[in-house]
């Protein structure tokens, strides 16, 4: 169980972004976070994944702090995959950075053999996003923070991506935190949803 307890965070003094926000994500659970831009959605995601350290409060995984080394059990999926990959690495190397997915998993996410020898710049955003999602699904991973991963995709690709992720998450009991502007999408995906404003989470 991934638990954020009374998280507070501010980038500049006097402008609190998160004020004692608490959130619990258990295995196999899908939770949605919506909010205006600048409300701190991505910051919350980064805190949960250990990219940032909270200034007050704590993030715990099964009662213990997040591990400091190795493959992180909480993975953060950023909005733009172009910035999340090394532009000089070929897709095969990017994909196998942490683990080697099986052929069946590659197929489930719609990856094609011919992409593997390419550089990320020659893949479209949707194709690269699928590579990035699969890359983050190493066996050690138990929670995902999907930060607007489908905003730049057309509706059909969007459905394909979520379908594949949904299937994988159900199989492995992954807990997924979906961050999105799109309330219709959140209603579809997440039984439990929160709106982030003024540093507080309110359920809707």
């Amino acid at each position, binding site marked *: 169980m991934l638990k954020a307890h009374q998280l507070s965070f501010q980038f500049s003094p006097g402008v609190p972004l998160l004020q004692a926000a608490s959130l619990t994500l258990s295995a196999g659970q899908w939770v949605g976070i919506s909010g205006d831009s600048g409300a701190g959605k991505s910051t919350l995601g980064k805190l949960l994944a250990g990219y940032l350290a909270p200034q007050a409060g704590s993030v715990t995984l099964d009662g213990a702090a997040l591990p400091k080394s190795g493959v992180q059990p909480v993975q953060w999926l950023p909005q733009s995959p172009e910035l999340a990959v090394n532009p000089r690495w070929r897709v095969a190397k990017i994909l196998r950075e942490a683990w080697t997915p099986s052929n069946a998993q590659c197929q489930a996410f719609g990856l094609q053999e011919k992409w593997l020898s390419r550089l990320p710049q020659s893949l479209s955003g949707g194709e690269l996003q699928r590579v990035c999602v699969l890359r983050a699904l190493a066996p050690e991973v138990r929670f995902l923070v999907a930060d607007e991963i489908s905003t730049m995709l057309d509706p*059909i690709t969007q459905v394909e991506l979520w379908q594949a992720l949904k299937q994988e998450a159900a199989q492995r009991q992954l807990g997924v935190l979906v961050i999105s502007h799109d309330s219709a999408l959140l209603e579809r995906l997440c039984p439990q949803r929160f709106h982030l404003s003024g540093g507080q989470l309110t359920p809707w």
Partner: protein
Amino acid sequence: MLTIDHLTLQLPYYAHGHASWWKRRWATCLDDLTLQISAGEVHAVVGASGAGKSLLAYAIMGLLPPAARLSGQLNYQEKPLDAVRQRQLRGRELALIPQSLSALDPLVRTHRQVTWAAQRAGQPSTGARHAAQRALDHYQLDTQAQQAYAHELSGGMARRVLTAMAHVSQAQLVIADEPTVGLDPHQRQRVLDALRGLADQGKTVILITHDLRHALPVADRVTIMRDGKQVETALACAFQDDGTSLNHGYSQALWLALPDNAFTTATISKDKQGVSVA
């Protein structure tokens, strides 16, 4: 206003030939596109990434790479739109809101950049400064953002700066290439309303987007593109219920894949079988 007649665009790429030697081949990126866009219309061009939406914008603006092979006919206000005319009209009559945020000059502060756009459109310097100010205020960019460099802006702010630049140029034809990516719902609505407002003033707007749902309320007609081909051009009101008034299976599938509809990947044929996610 703008007519596109059998437009075909080919771009070169290099691949191994028979004798394992790099050989130039041609990829057809736009295939026989025919469109008529009239003044006062918001025409949405929707499709997956790689469908050739942005290339269509570049073809109209004359911003294609020199090696591109273009055939077909472009007419703007009843006269052929050739390379010379494109260069004359670009930034004056034709404005592009580019997709890439790197279109902003990294060494110039926001306010001056928008002023430049107004000057390019032929406004005197004082008038241009005031016009820039008004446009920036309209898109809710505060003083801090106006004095910022491009790298200091958030993605949504940079996108609004680009929209403001097209706004001050007084262009008759505005091509907006994915203007709403990374904006929150209020700002997205503001940008889309602004584009609708331009069309209501008698200008022409081509709205290139993958976001079918938010394009529909402001668009008059929608062209669906797939792999460089024009799948269908339909009235925006045809996208309703289960999409049976659409002629093509792909447009239907796109419509049904929206989260407010079925959220399924319907097979690309007439039958609406699909696997639901929820």
